[in-house]
């Protein structure tokens, strides 16, 4: 490699790092999460081992022998010689003697019970709550409700409790609180009717918004091309506003515009039309609003790209066509549009990809309503993994949605490459060959 090439690489490196950090790493992580059952309850960082009442119920259902269950559950807090010795060491012999006299040999199933017993010490009271708790722990012989951070620690506890070897794998499996690898997410998603509804919604969203973006962008670009320069820039600036407005502000304006008590309802009420929510009234209303909201943002980008592409067309061609008597429509059809093929391809494929994954405007406007009618795939992934009322965040399942979206995106890009004959567009001019 030449030295200059290394220089190029060096200049590119910040971009490469950004791509790696903000694109590759998330994609890889998504792929990884998609094959787990990660959720709020399992946490992300791995798990610990704990046996609680729910766990015991699950073990009973799974057919763990009753003896073993009793062994785990019944151990409780035992006032034995070892415990009393430890109590003597911590709190003095008289305390241990008094406690031994009152309760030696007893087994308490719950911590609260032994704490009550410790509270009953009259001559040698343990006054502080914290000390009583510590004293109770000295008699603990049960592994219930104790979190073991590692597998060896848990296995040691099983060993100490003399749990039969054959039962240990099942107990360990139930006791584990962390996530496990699974491929079931994919089958589960595909078995849900709502998944197909999301796919359909995404199809509607992408097709209609994309058509609006490209056609309206083209219209704006061509219309402003034929205007005097000053007016053209004014119009372009106006149509550029939706893109530069902060999304939240932009959507607040839309809500104000379409709400029951908003602009449209107020204006129409003077014509006798009953006020209604023009954004959420029916699915049709919701989709129209969503397409317009996203369309105005997307069209401005098309407008800019198409406008500059039109300016790059040699003006001599346009003059020549006018000399030949071509009207505006003929000019557009025969000269401008053919030369916009590359930018149209670019805008179409770029916007398809970004629409597939974008949901922020839908989230802010309808949040998938009414009745899930505008819940697109990406929004469903967001709701599943990160944002729902119960706080039941299913990272694994959400990532599966996202991963499938990546696959769909890749397939769509390949289809575009074929459709627009990408290679021909990129062919090197002969003169350079």
């Amino acid at each position, binding site marked *: 490699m030449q030295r200059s090439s290394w220089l190029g690489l060096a200049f590119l490196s910040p971009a490469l790092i950004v791509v790696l950090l903000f694109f590759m790493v998330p994609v890889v992580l998504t792929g990884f999460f998609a094959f787990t059952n990660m959720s709020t309850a399992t946490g992300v960082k791995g798990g610990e081992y704990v046996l609680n009442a729910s766990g015991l119920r699950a073990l009973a259902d799974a057919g763990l022998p009753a003896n073993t269950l009793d062994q785990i559950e019944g151990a409780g807090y035992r006032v034995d010689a070892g415990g009393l010795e430890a109590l003597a060491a911590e709190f003095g012999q008289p305390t241990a003697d008094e406690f031994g006299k009152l309760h030696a040999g007893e087994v308490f199933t719950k911590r609260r019970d032994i704490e009550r017993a410790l509270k009953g010490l009259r001559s040698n009271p343990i006054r502080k709550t914290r000390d009583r708790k510590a004293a109770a722990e000295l008699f603990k012989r049960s592994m219930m409700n104790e979190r073991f951070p590692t597998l060896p620690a848990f296995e040691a506890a099983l060993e100490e409790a003399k749990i039969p070897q054959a039962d240990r794998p099942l107990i360990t499996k139930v006791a584990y609180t962390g996530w496990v690898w699974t491929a079931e997410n994919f089958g589960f998603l595909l078995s849900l009717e709502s998944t197909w509804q999301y796919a359909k919604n995404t199809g509607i969203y992408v097709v209609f918004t994309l058509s609006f973006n490209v056609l309206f962008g083209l219209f704006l670009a061509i219309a402003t091309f034929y205007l005097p320069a000053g007016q053209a820039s004014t119009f372009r600036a106006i149509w550029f506003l939706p893109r530069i407005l902060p999304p939240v502000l932009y959507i607040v304006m839309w809500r104000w515009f379409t709400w029951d008590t908003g602009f449209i309802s107020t204006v129409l009420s003077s014509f006798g039309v009953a006020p209604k929510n023009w954004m959420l*009234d029916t699915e049709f209303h919701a989709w129209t609003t969503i397409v317009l909201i996203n369309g105005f943002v997307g069209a401005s980008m098309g407008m800019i790209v198409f406008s500059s592409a039109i300016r790059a067309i040699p003006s001599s061609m346009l003059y020549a066509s006018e000399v030949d008597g071509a009207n505006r429509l003929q000019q557009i059809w025969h000269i401008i549009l053919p030369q916009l093929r590359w930018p149209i391809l670019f805008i179409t494929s770029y916007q398809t990809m970004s629409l597939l994954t974008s949901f922020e405007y839908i989230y802010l406007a309808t949040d998938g309503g009414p009745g899930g009618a505008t819940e697109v795939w990406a929004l469903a992934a967001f709701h599943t993994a990160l944002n729902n*009322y119960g706080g039941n965040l299913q990272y694994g399942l959400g990532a599966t949605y996202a991963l499938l979206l990546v696959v769909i995106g890749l397939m769509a890009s390949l289809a575009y490459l074929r459709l627009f004959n990408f290679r021909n567009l990129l062919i090197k001019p002969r003169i350079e060959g």
Partner: protein
Amino acid sequence: MTTLVSKLRQSTAAAVLALTAATVAGEAFAKDLTITVWSGGSNDSDAYRWEAIEMAADILEREAAILGEDLNITVESKGQFGNWQEFKQAVTLAAEAGTAPNIVVTSHLDIAPWSEAGYIVPVEEYLDIDAWPLSDIYPNIMEIAAFDDVQWGLPQDAESRPFFFWKDTLKKIGYSDEDIAAIPARVEAGEYTLQNVLEDAKKAVDMNVVEEGYGFYPRVSNGPDYAQFYQSFGGQLLDPDSGKLVLDKKAMEEFYQFFVDAVDAGITRKNHLGTDWGQWYNEVANGKAAIWHGGTWHYGRYAQEGNEDFWNTIEFSLIPAGTENGRANTITHPLVYLITDNADDEAEEIAANLVKIASEPRLNTLHAIKSNHLGISRQQSNIELYSNNRWADEATDRLLAHANSQPNHVNYGAYSEALFKGLEAAWTGTKTPAEAVAEVEVQMKATLGDELIVR
């Protein structure tokens, strides 16, 4: 956030150093500690959720001072979150990143998954549950903050979710004052059912007393309220014997059908879900709707919306039964104080003691009355601020005795999400109630597996 955490870490480290130094020197030690409190689902009138912690910190500092310890607790609180979704997302992600606040005020439903994930520690590790003030808390409310026989949190408030009737509208459709006053008792006895709600609401719309879509005006977003209607039709959320969640298909379908009937009759809007909360409160507070349901805390909110005369304008009752199989009911959904798992054991202990002090009757009463919630302990009825409040008194009497809560179960979140999704699909006409229930069944079976009983 990061600065907060680093501050917390610094202060903890400083405290540990100070402690060591003091032990070595055998002198009184100084301890500086920052305790962070995050509270979900709160607005301005709920400020005592964290202000009570600040007051508790003051008391704890004074107690320490008497013992010759120099304890300095700085309470940093955050009560402004966009909605429950954002709050829970924030807490969960912070806990994963190891930067969770010390004290969280949240729904009791979070106890199961958060304890499983190891985000929280049980308060019983630090507190004597048998001693006052905890011994004075109503046992059934205390139970709601427990999971798997472990006392994970302490109840922060109590509430319940009643049905409301606009008196003037009922009069216009033929009710006398006595009839209206008898409604709560008739609802409780199962004589006035959801079918009567449909009839009365339809009358109100047909007679043009209220606009179309305003006959029955339910909650506009997901919430515990909808589980009440499932119970109205005889549905059970949890099987107490096996500890498993229950999908009663018949009750679920009848519950969905009720909302579909309401839409078909023109008394509820098809696109009602998603209505702006501000708009909703204003409308129900001022008589635009005939019948609706909400929570005990709405009492104060209606006054803010301009209705100063609650008692003469609004009647309230339990959620009526749907069929003979069902029962009139209401759900109480107490928020709880939870202590998060922290590297510093001392911080956990202090946080636990702060929530204990904040649960004392006088402090809790400040919250209960200011935010129109119900008290958590018996002694609150001996505090005049509480006992002189007609709303707290009557709502406790009429509702709380019949209240049940949603179950603390690791998978209840997924259950309730599926229940609401099905309702939304049926309500908006995307699916028939039977289709919606079929999908709910698929969804629940797949996510809950063995933890679900289908009836």
